[in-house]
């Protein structure tokens, strides 16, 4: 102690250490809880905000959220459902990893073990399979929602690009998971998939440069580690499926969420600002420092408080309820429906018909015209085109409004009817009349690569959306037209390949007409 300071008051008599220890022990539950959550049950807007931003897991949500964003029609809850399915897939996937053995000799037997012997194994695998299908479906729907409400427009352009990345990752996750059971379905679907990776040879062969420049062969060899689907391919797909792709998806998901906040919350229609309300600026107390650094707006600055509500409990409870609902549906599916497992992979006998999972069947129909265009060319053009949409359509009207209003609804309806007519017409023509090679047997392959039913559809859709853009004098209408074309074509092609393609990829009106072996 410094001697110049005033003499200390005599210290209070300290309780005995043992007594203090007993008291501390009694208070430990309360102190532990306080150190864990730092605040009690929220009783005011301010403490509700604190409940969000002092919690690591909740802080991805803003403390206040626009009323509109909580409506079902704003988002249909698809992003939340997709995220819950991804978490569910991670959990069940880790459980399955405990018993699954990634080797050609053991993989199929370990699947049988998981199905028949491992406690809850069948249940876990069922949930994993149905949640995977559900996630792909929800990603499609979520993309359609974001597109039709104009959520891709500035300042959210880049988040749309990230979303496209997540879409591709989801499909790759499904594709790599497909091989792991090592049954007939898996083996032949992946054989076809790896040959699609090799299909740039269709072009390089036509140009006669394959021996010097062979990107197709390189892709296949990197994917399979061999010339055929075998041990090396199984290990590679396993590594991609359990580590590489989930990790990439997690990182992109984090950025996706973060950008929702930095881009000013979920997209919503512009509303006239109500000036006669007294605005109580109670919260958030801690975010103002960022305003000058972060571009875009947060819900707190561009809206009157009257249009926002505290995220606790409104958004949190909505998210929790949606998560519970999603999990309940998946649990019910897992109890009722068993995931399919065919006979063990046999490299000598292909499945007939060898059908990919439903979300790739539209592509498989295109692949049956040209391997390169159907499997690589057209999908790459569609994904690239959709990525560029926010940079090509920058109209600011009716952002956050479904289909951008009445004109947009009309354009979408018209495009849907037009697309249905075009796709059904081309499919009917191809099934009954054949294509170029049936008429000119000696036609060079490169002509078929560029002129086949798939590319013809793509060109018609592009011309249609340019026509719509020109007639309506609006880039948004053009974007709505082209997206609707892709969506409807995807649905019809998928339906056609599921129902009307049978053995030998021949046309059948229904499965009951398939020949018996």
């Amino acid at each position, binding site marked *: 102690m410094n001697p110049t300071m005033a003499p200390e008051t005599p210290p209070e008599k300290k309780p005995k250490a043992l007594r203090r220890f007993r008291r501390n022990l009694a208070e430990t539950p309360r102190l532990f809880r306080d150190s864990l959550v730092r605040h009690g049950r929220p009783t005011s807007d301010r403490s509700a905000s604190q409940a969000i931003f002092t919690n690591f897991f909740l802080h991805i949500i803003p403390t206040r959220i626009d009323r509109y964003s909580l409506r079902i029609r704003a988002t249909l809850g698809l992003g939340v459902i997709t995220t819950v399915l991804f978490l569910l897939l991670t959990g069940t996937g880790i459980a399955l990893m405990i018993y699954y053995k990634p080797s050609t000799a053991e993989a199929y037997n370990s699947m049988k073990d998981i199905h028949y012997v491992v406690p809850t194994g069948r249940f876990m695998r069922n949930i994993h399979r149905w949640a995977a299908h559900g996630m792909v479906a929800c990603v499609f729907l979520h993309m359609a929602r974001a597109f039709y409400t104009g959520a891709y427009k500035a300042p959210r352009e880049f988040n749309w690009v990230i979303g496209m990345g997540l879409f591709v990752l989801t499909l790759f996750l499904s594709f790599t998971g497909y091989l792991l059971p090592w049954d007939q379905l898996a083996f*032949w679907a992946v*054989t*076809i998939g*790896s*040959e*699609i990776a090799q*299909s740039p*040879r*269709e072009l390089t*062969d*036509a140009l006669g440069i394959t021996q010097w420049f062979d990107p197709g062969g*390189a892709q296949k*060899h*990197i994917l399979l*580690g*061999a*010339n*055929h689907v*075998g*041990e*090396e391919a199984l290990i*590679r797909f396993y590594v991609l499926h359990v580590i590489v792709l989930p990790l990439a998806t997690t990182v992109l998901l984090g950025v996706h969420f973060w950008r929702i906040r930095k881009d000013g919350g979920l997209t919503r229609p512009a509303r006239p600002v109500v000036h006669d309300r007294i605005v109580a600026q109670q919260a958030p107390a801690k975010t103002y420092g960022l305003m*000058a*650094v972060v*571009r875009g707006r947060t819900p707190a600055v561009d809206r009157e408080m009257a249009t926002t509500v505290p995220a606790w409990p409104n958004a949190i409870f909505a998210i929790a309820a949606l998560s519970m609902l999603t999990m309940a549906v998946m649990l019910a599916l897992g109890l009722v429906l068993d995931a399919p497992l065919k006979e063990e992979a046999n490299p*000598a*006998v*292909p499945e*007939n*018909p*060898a059908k990919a999972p439903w979300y790739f069947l539209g592509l498989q129909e295109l*692949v*049956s*015209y*040209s*391997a*390169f265009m159907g499997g690589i060319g057209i999908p790459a053009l569609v994904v690239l085109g959709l990525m560029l949409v926010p940079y090509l359509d920058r109209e600011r009207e009716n952002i956050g409004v479904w289909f951008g209003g009445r004109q947009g609804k009309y354009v979408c309806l018209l495009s849907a009817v037009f697309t249905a007519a075009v796709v059904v017409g081309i499919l009917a023509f191809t099934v009954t009349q*054949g294509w170029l*090679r*049936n008429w000119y*047997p000696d036609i060079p*392959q490169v002509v*078929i*690569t560029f002129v086949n039913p798939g590319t013809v559809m793509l060109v018609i859709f592009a011309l249609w959306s340019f026509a719509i853009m020109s007639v309506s004098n609006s880039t948004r209408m053009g974007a709505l037209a082209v997206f609707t074309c892709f969506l409807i074509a995807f649905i019809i092609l998928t339906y056609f390949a599921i129902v009307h393609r049978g*053995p*030998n*990829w*021949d046309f059948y009106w229904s499965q009951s007409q398939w020949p018996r072996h």
Partner: protein
Amino acid sequence: MSTEPGGDLQSSQRFAPPQERRDFLGLAAIWSAVGACAFALIGALRLPMPSVFPESNPKVKLGPPSRFLDAEVTALPEQRLWVYSTSEGMYAISAVCTHLGCIVAKEEDGYFCPCHGSRFDAMGNVVAGPAPRGLVYLELSISPDGQLVVDRQKEVAAAVRLKA
């Protein structure tokens, strides 16, 4: 100038105007770092590119050639090929479809792929369907111990015949 407390953080006024020489050195540093990372990535990508394939020897002994002389065509499903023996000599056609790797079935007057409906004539040329080219002819040879050998990785022209 903004009068906000703390100033306009996004304005260039916060920083001294760039000096060209320093700018150049800074850019050179950044781009050499980017270049180094790119080359490291290319190097790392070489790892999954197999330099030795795990397959067993692509050359397989099929037994004495006399075994194939009796019939015009002999199917070898394990090797995924057919061996033909004609008066001009012997040749082998691979059963792997050139479209997407399914196994074609032999019909009376040609071949047929069950996966996407490609059809080939008796000589393996594409007749219909999505296959980009005809079926592959594989190299046949006679080993020193007198057996017929097929190289499953080596393609030969359709006209090549092995005199037995």
